[in-house]
């Protein structure tokens, strides 16, 4: 018997679960959202669609980056907490399986799923807007998955209301940084420890547009998410599965 091989083979089931339970939802939401916002502008702008200065390009970047955030939110919803709430952990982890490896694998399988879904959506967008780079968009997707998903993973390990917590943390950080970020008092110091979501717009514009971004911003986003992902794994290791 090979426990590692068993867990690796189980990744195919995990991917199937993603495709059925989350992937289709992400595709439908992304397509409808994109179509509803981009198609009317494309219809009006007409042949000027290729230019990156066109209003269509600006909307495309905004919508596509927002779809990535929603996709990560959908993907990470209940990634750990759902098994606890439903009690599925009982049979899963009476098998010779390390829960830390199980959920770490699940996190990356879902990452592959989100990137695959974004590939399909961006391929459609590329047909409408040929200057829209699929590789650049997928790079941005991977970065946001780690940045936002790492926090989501941690919240799913530590709370039962993970999607709500993640949305609150993500949007709350954006709001609080907007209010206090420019000051110099204790509140502005405090908001510095919040997720660096204020860097996301710049990173989206530059990474989707040119494939490069300010390295410090990228590292900050990536490091913040990776740190919380690692904290989530540690909480899984040292906490109780049944609590």
């Amino acid at each position, binding site marked *: *018997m*090979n*426990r590692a*091989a*068993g*867990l690796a*083979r*189980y990744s195919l*089931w995990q991917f199937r679960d993603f495709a059925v339970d989350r992937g289709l939802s992400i595709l439908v939401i992304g397509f409808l959202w994109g179509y509803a916002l981009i198609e009317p502008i494309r219809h009006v702008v007409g042949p000027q669609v290729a230019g990156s200065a066109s209003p269509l390009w600006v909307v495309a970047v905004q919508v596509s980056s927002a779809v990535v955030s929603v996709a990560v939110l959908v993907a990470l919803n209940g990634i750990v907490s759902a098994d606890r709430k*439903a*009690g*599925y*952990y*009982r*049979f*899963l*982890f*009476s*098998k*010779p*399986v*390390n829960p830390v490896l199980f959920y770490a694998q699940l996190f990356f399988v879902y990452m592959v799923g989100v990137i695959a879904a974004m590939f399909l959506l961006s391929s459609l967008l590329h047909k409408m807007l040929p200057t829209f780079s699929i590789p650049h968009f997928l790079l941005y997707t991977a970065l946001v998955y780690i940045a936002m998903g790492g926090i989501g993973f941690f919240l799913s390990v530590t709370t039962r209301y993970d999607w709500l917590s993640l949305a609150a943390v993500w949007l709350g950080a954006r709001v609080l940084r907007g209010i206090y970020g420019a000051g110099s008092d204790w509140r502005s110091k405090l908001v510095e420890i919040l997720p660096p979501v204020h860097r996301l717009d710049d990173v989206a514009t530059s990474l989707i547009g040119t494939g490069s971004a300010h390295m410090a911003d990228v590292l900050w986003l990536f490091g913040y998410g990776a740190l919380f992902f690692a904290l989530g794994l540690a909480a899984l290791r040292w*906490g*109780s*599965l*049944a*609590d």
Partner: protein
Amino acid sequence: MAKLPESGDTDGRTAALVIEFRNVGKTYKSLLGNSVKAVEEFSLVVGEGEILGIAGPNGAGKTTLIAMMLGYLRPTTGTVEINGVPARQYVERHGIGYLSELIAINPKWRAETALVRFATLAGIAQSEIPRRVDYVVDLLGLAEHRDKKVKALSKGNLQRLGLAQALLRDEQILVLDEPTHGLDPVWTQRFRDIVQELRRPDRMILIASHNLDELQRLADRVAIIDRGRLQRVVSTSYENTGDGSTAQPVATRFRLTLASGHELIRAVFPQAEDAGRGEYDVTVNSLPELNGALADLIGKGALVASVVPERSVLEQQFREAVGESQ
């Protein structure tokens, strides 16, 4: 019953199997600071080859104890070790065949798919999975339900599916929490036969149940717990096993059913009380006295149909233990 096919999935386990609960306690604390002690100072050693029953009223701490044994919960105090390593570490390395009281399997999965998934996760070789799944499906009579979604299964069939997933691997430790809950009488008896077939010198089986009659039939010893504390360990054998457990005391009152020779009963059991329909309640002081009297009765020509203790001795012990703790 067909033997479980050899899977070679013992992971090199050679040491004698032992589970040791050492002063285990579990306290649940709420956010408001209230605390509830689910288990207190629980110490017990379970050895291989043994079937241990765990009995206790609702809320006694049975399920919490099992959750700590599987490493799902961390004890607040004390340790749970299997073969000298923390329980969770053992489970991650070797696995345990576990049937939980609550059968939680994704309702959208089909029964057979669920078993294939669990077998995959358990590390059973890909080529071996169909054979293992077929085996447990046949063993538990799930053939006609294998393509049904889990949510479409009746309570009894779901219970059997839960037991099937626990038997996928050739585990050394089986933990069955309320295993016959929801089973009809036919499958309850079938389950008992399966457990007897699963008994092996190198295997340990723990059964938590409210059904004392079931534990009396299946277990070697029964740990009676109440309010989170171990009240006593009762041997279901009439012999003194010398393992520290309380030897099964002999019942003193029996119901005797005679098929013929009713006129002989007073000659052998002068105090026998007629319970009607050929049944008599008799009182004796020991097993030799009972056996001697029965031999005398049969020798005189009576035909004995059955001899049943008026009350299960385990039930008597349970009542005493739970009564003492309150």
